[in-house]
């Protein structure tokens, strides 16, 4: 399938870049693959960014040595105003194993390139900081995502340091290590602060403590079971990741989900957003001592979680999404509960926000705290809530409509101030928009089908799927294999993009404000580490 616009683009790229551009194919209307002759991604990246203002969404690799004799790197680009994803596929030779790094110009892919190094044993030549990121330093030299590495490999006990932190010099400069086990009930990760008195000079992170082989495991599970693994990538985003995964399979197999299935997914995606945003608003309030606001927020969250259970049998919305739609439809009682809970929630949420708005001290503490400047946010490739509070106007629901989003109108809030207050403000606005979406969607397509039967999934098909989870852009990319299995499943949680935002935002703030700044991003460790 090659549209006219595509052949024009192909010709233009050919003229510009010559025979390095080998071929172009459209697996589907909004997913175009461009095959390069070699691993040198730099010229085309420069061209796409310079000429088209394209944004590099994600970078990942695949071991295709057995079938094609090479590794492939995939570079996913999007262009403002276009729903298409352009995926540049660059072979990395299995003898040299090298590909040129883009991280010096594009810090956004810093971690992702290092992940490719760690998991595939490829080398990002010219990377400004090529140290391990996804495997700790004390791991032996193993490359878990290579096809010749068995999932069940038992590694010997680890010895030595997991990570050598850069030293901090200067009079009165102290290093404060925190973690991996933290004081509260949160996920593990290690923070190393360099402080001069109270202010934080810089923060170094050591993540991937919860790395549990998820991408590799996807290659072993039959697809219908893998849906449950997708739901366990990040528990607070069970439905978003589950949906992203099912969508990927549906795209690969040309399965068309019927209208009510799409609508119900939309409703549940928005309920997941509301639920988490309310929880975060409460948690941010707690961290500045506004405990009453949190008591209300967490109570409101509990009513939504209870609704989740009524709608799906699970408080985390698990076991509902499936390839082909959703598993069950809703009866009158469930629809009634949905309507009344959302209506009363809308009222109570207004009350909660007016409580917060009236609290001068809360505003005082949150304004100009943890500022992420828009230029930094853009350079670092920050997505989701953290991006939109710092001028990054991205939202997959609007930019690459999926589920039933094109049927409803909603506003995407964007602010420039980039502080904790505005990250909270983005959440508040989004909750209000989500309430509107849910109310509009409730009765939409009510009598239509919600699920289609799933045929055997054809082998060797690639598909990209994107979902705007409540944190931001979730990407799943798959290649199907024989017998309803996957050859590869790439997961990108928005958290992976956004940790550097935290590093940036805490600089110059006092260490006592770290918890609230961290909470205002609220990133998923499990989503990052997989």
């Amino acid at each position, binding site marked *: 399938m090659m549209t006219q616009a595509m052949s024009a683009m192909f010709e233009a790229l050919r003229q510009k870049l010559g025979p390095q551009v080998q071929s172009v194919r459209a697996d589907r209307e909004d997913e175009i693959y461009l095959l390069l002759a070699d691993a040198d991604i730099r010229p085309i990246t420069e061209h796409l960014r310079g000429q088209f203002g394209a944004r590099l969404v994600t970078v990942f690799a695949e071991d295709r040595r057995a079938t094609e004799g090479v590794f492939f790197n995939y570079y996913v680009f999007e262009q403002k105003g276009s729903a298409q994803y352009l995926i540049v596929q660059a072979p990395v030779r299995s003898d040299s194993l090298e590909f040129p790094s883009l991280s010096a110009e594009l810090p956004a892919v810093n971690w992702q390139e290092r992940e490719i190094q760690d998991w595939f044993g490829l080398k990002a030549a010219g990377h400004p900081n090529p140290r391990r990121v996804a495997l*700790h330093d004390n791991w032996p030299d*193993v490359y*878990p995502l290579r096809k010749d*590495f*068995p*999932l*069940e*490999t*038992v*590694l010997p006990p680890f010895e030595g340091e*997991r990570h050598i932190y850069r030293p901090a010099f200067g009079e009165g400069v102290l290093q404060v290590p925190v973690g*991996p*086990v933290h*004081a*509260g*009930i*949160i*996920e*593990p990760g290690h923070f190393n602060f360099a402080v001069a008195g109270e202010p934080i000079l810089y923060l170094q992170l050591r993540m*991937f*403590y*919860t*790395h*549990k*082989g998820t991408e*590799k*495991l996807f290659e072993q*599970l039959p697809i*219908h079971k893998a*849906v*449950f*693994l997708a739901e*366990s990538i*990040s*528990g*607070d985003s069970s439905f978003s990741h589950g949906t992203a995964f099912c969508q990927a399979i549906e795209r690969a197999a040309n399965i068309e989900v019927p209208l009510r299935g799409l609508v119900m997914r939309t409703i549940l995606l928005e309920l997941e957003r509301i639920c988490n945003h309310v929880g975060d608003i409460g948690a941010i309030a707690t961290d500045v001592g506004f405990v*009453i606001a949190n*008591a*209300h927020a*967490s*109570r409101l*969250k*509990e009513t939504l979680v*209870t609704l989740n*259970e*009524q709608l*799906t*049998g*699970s408080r*985390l919305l*698990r*076991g509902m999404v499936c390839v082909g739609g959703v598993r069950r439809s809703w009866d009158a009682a*469930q629809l009634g509960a949905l309507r009344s809970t959302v209506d009363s929630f809308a009222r109570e949420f207004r*009350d909660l926000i*007016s*409580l917060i708005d*009236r609290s001068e001290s809360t505003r005082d503490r949150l304004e100009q705290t943890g500022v992420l400047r828009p230029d930094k946010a853009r350079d670092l490739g920050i997505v989701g809530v953290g991006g939109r509070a710092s001028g990054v106007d991205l939202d997959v629901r609007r930019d690459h409509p999926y589920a039933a989003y094109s049927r409803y109108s909603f506003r995407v809030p964007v602010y420039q101030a980039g502080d904790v207050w505005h990250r909270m403000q983005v959440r508040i606005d989004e909750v209000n928009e989500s309430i509107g979406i849910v109310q509009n969607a409730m009765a939409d397509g009510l009598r239509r089908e919600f699920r289609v039967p799933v045929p055997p999934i054809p082998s060797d098909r690639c598909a990209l799927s994107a979902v705007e989870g409540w944190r931001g852009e979730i990407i799943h990319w798959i290649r199907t294999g024989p017998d309803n299995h996957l050859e590869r499943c790439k997961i990108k949680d928005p958290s992976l993009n956004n940790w550097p935002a935290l590093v940036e935002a805490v600089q110059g703030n006092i260490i006592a404000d770290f918890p609230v700044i961290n909470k205002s991003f609220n990133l*998923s*460790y*499990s989503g990052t580490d997989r």
Partner: protein
Amino acid sequence: MFKILQKTVSTGTVTVNYPAEPAKISERFRGRPSFDFDKWKDARPAADVCPTGAISLSDNDESRNVTVDYGLCVFCGLCAEASSDQAVRVTQEFALATSDRRNLVFTAEYTLNADRTHGGLRKVDRRLVDAETDVESLGQKARDTIQKILGRSLAIREVDAGSCNGCELEIVALNNPVHDIERFGIHFVASPRHADMLLVTGPVTRNMELALLKTHRAMAEPKVVVAVGACGISGGIFGENYASLGSVDKVLPVDVYIPGCPPRPQALLHGILLAVGRLAERLHTDRAG
């Protein structure tokens, strides 16, 4: 200020009274699948769909062993949907915590017909998960223990040893005004040195093994360890692989297991109260000894 008070007063009391009163849960909640082993004519469809291998089969020529492990179950209900003979049902049972891992495993042996469906049930070993689920008295006992023996407060240190964060959400929910675990005098604390109980989630990752061990070591005796959720009990859907060690009891001695994916707050509370009982026993023997 007035506004805040007004909001607080108009909201009233929201805290539930579980376990003194039964939990009010939605009738849609998916709890433990129950198996009518006498009626079950074919376990294969259920085993085929079960995402975590909680239902596993081992066949030989004329017989089949079926194992159901609630320590692996994520309560998805697929087994019930897949079984046409009505022998598998989704129940609302959630208080499944137990101090004996073996209590979570049922086994059955069937003779097989020529078409591999079940002929007859030869034997079944169904340990009673609900032997320990008289939650009401459990709650009362735990309250007494905390009051009288522990000086009115029980301190829990939570460690995420690799979870997906689903269990953390429910543990956090225990502290919300609805579930309000503090009404039992139970607190979550920052330092393991102050903790009586270690609540562990996740399959234990290779990268968290050491931190988990260190946290446990830092706790004073007597102490109890609770493994939370399918992953904590068995490794769950992640199982064991190059990055995951699997169950918590591979690393630490576990006193109580709380099934669920994640366990709902009431299920967590049930397991925690059960663990308070274990702690009381240990205090008792320590003192006596």
